[in-house]
């Protein structure tokens, strides 16, 4: 049984079909990449799975149980963690306190939560930043904190939206290494979006490609990189034509 099953999911906004009858499965322990140009519908698909949007049609199943229409806090408690493309956290909470908030999803005692937060900050190499406020940190550190917060809720699957957006090449590499580290350390399933294909290619065991709200391809990274429809989606008709000659 697949850990996450999406069956015929459709989400329409005024004038756009952001997700058009999308189906796929994710097995426990996999790292799956979700790619597609800007506006392809990746964030919308995430939001439909975790419950920020109510899909117009389709079913989402987690661990075999339907979770369609669950609220975000319910999908999180069920075991789905997620990070945000852009996350602005104002307010007085420090980095370590924000991670504690994640821990409080499963524990009610603040001593345990504090201890868990310290362990996760250690894993994420964020000890230096523990006492800082979110808005004092550079983007790269903020993204790691977002990851740490989601991780603290002890998810079975972690969904990361635009893992590398706003990061320079070196930071992107570090992020990718970090993802592999937590995948191994926490026995996690990862579902990762990125509009820049090269970022998720090397770590994903399987890639799903969206374009214009539709799933246009799915397969091994190497096959995806040579798929004509994918190349067309990314680079346009002309490039495909040019390659033929």
């Amino acid at each position, binding site marked *: 049984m697949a850990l996450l099953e999406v069956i015929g999911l459709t989400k329409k906004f005024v004038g756009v079909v952001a997700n058009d009858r999308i189906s796929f499965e994710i097995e426990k322990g996999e790292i799956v990449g979700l790619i597609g140009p800007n506006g392809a519908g990746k964030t919308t698909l995430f939001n439909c799975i*975790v419950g*920020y949007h109510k899909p117009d049609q389709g079913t989402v199943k987690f661990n075999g149980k339907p979770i369609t229409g669950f*609220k*975000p*806090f319910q999908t*999180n*408690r069920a075991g789905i*963690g*997620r990070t*945000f493309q852009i*996350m*602005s*956290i*104002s*307010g*007085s*909470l420090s980095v370590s*306190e*924000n991670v*504690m*908030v*994640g821990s*409080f*999803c*499963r524990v*009610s*005692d*603040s*001593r345990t*939560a504090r201890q868990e937060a310290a362990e996760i900050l250690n894993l994420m190499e964020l000890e230096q930043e523990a006492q800082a406020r979110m808005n004092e940190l550079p983007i790269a550190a903020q993204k790691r904190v977002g990851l740490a*917060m*989601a991780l*603290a*809720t002890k998810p079975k699957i972690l969904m990361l939206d635009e893992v590398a957006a706003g990061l320079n090449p070196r930071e992107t590499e570090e992020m990718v290494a970090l993802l592999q580290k937590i995948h191994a350390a926490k026995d996690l399933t990862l579902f990762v979006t990125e509009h820049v294909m090269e970022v998720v290619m090397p770590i994903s065991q399987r890639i799903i490609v969206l374009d214009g709200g539709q799933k246009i391809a799915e397969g091994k990274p190497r096959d995806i990189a040579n798929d004509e429809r994918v190349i067309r989606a990314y680079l346009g008709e002309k490039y495909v034509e040019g390659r033929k000659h």
Partner: protein
Amino acid sequence: MPMHALKDALSFGDLPASERIGFAIFIAFCLVFPWISKGSFAQAVMIQFLIFCLYGLGWNLIGGYGGQVALGQAKNVGMSAYTVALFMVWWDVPFWFSTPIGVIIATVESFILGYFLLRLKGHYFAIATICVSLVWQQLFVNWDLIGGARGVELPLKETPNFVYMQFTSPIYYHYFAFVLVMGAILFMNWFRKSRLGYQLRAISANEEVAESLGINIHWVKVKAYCITGVFAGMGGAFYAVYYNYIDPFSVMHLELSIMIALMTMIGGAGSMWGPIIGAMILIPMDRYLGAWLGGSGIVGVDFMIYAFMVMVIAAYEPRGIWGIIEKARRRR
């Protein structure tokens, strides 16, 4: 778990030394005040200050930590105050029996109202609480059975009486109010380290993110709003026996709700000491200004001054005087 909670409530060890010293001075000042203060006016202002500390500490939960600008504390103060007053007038029920009932009524009203209104966002929530407050206010002004605009006078016992909380000297009220405020501070000291406290702060920082961390934001807000109601109810019950007279203008009025919110914002919403600092500045200012200008026919000067203070703070440091103090501390 309860032992840990008690320990959290009683331990101020994580605070900087300067804060602990400030708190000790506050306690010492409150303890000796009745013995060093001269006039009865000063003592009355002091008791007012303590009542407003209680209101502000309670409002700080939903309004400060939770970031939900609720402007309806007065109706919960009023419900409890009227319960205590009317139970005594009608059935001669002592303070210690009517107070729990008054607090429960105030809390249940908070629960019902919060359950429905806390689904509204931002300004809509604030406006909705104002509307509900105005309805309650009108109801109490026009409801003759409970005294209408004339209010309710509590019958006096012949001798000072502990079960009815009737004393001739204000000292007893002073210490009782002080005990209530200390209880509120210890509660807040537990709260700020608790799961509820962290979740509430996460909600006010970013609701979307909070939801993604498994927080049922609606339910957490409702819980906080109920606790705010408990504090208001305690304050109202005390108010009734302290003044022996209540009317809709003193305990049910929107002006009181606004005063509580402004005071906490000026002192520092969402911080432990903010409400106390706010009350320390605003209450004496309000009472002495009132006494000074009272005869001259100038009205509204007090609210003009508050409005000015709020403007300065909103422009300079949204987290109030406590925000300024913290900023200075972080810079060092």
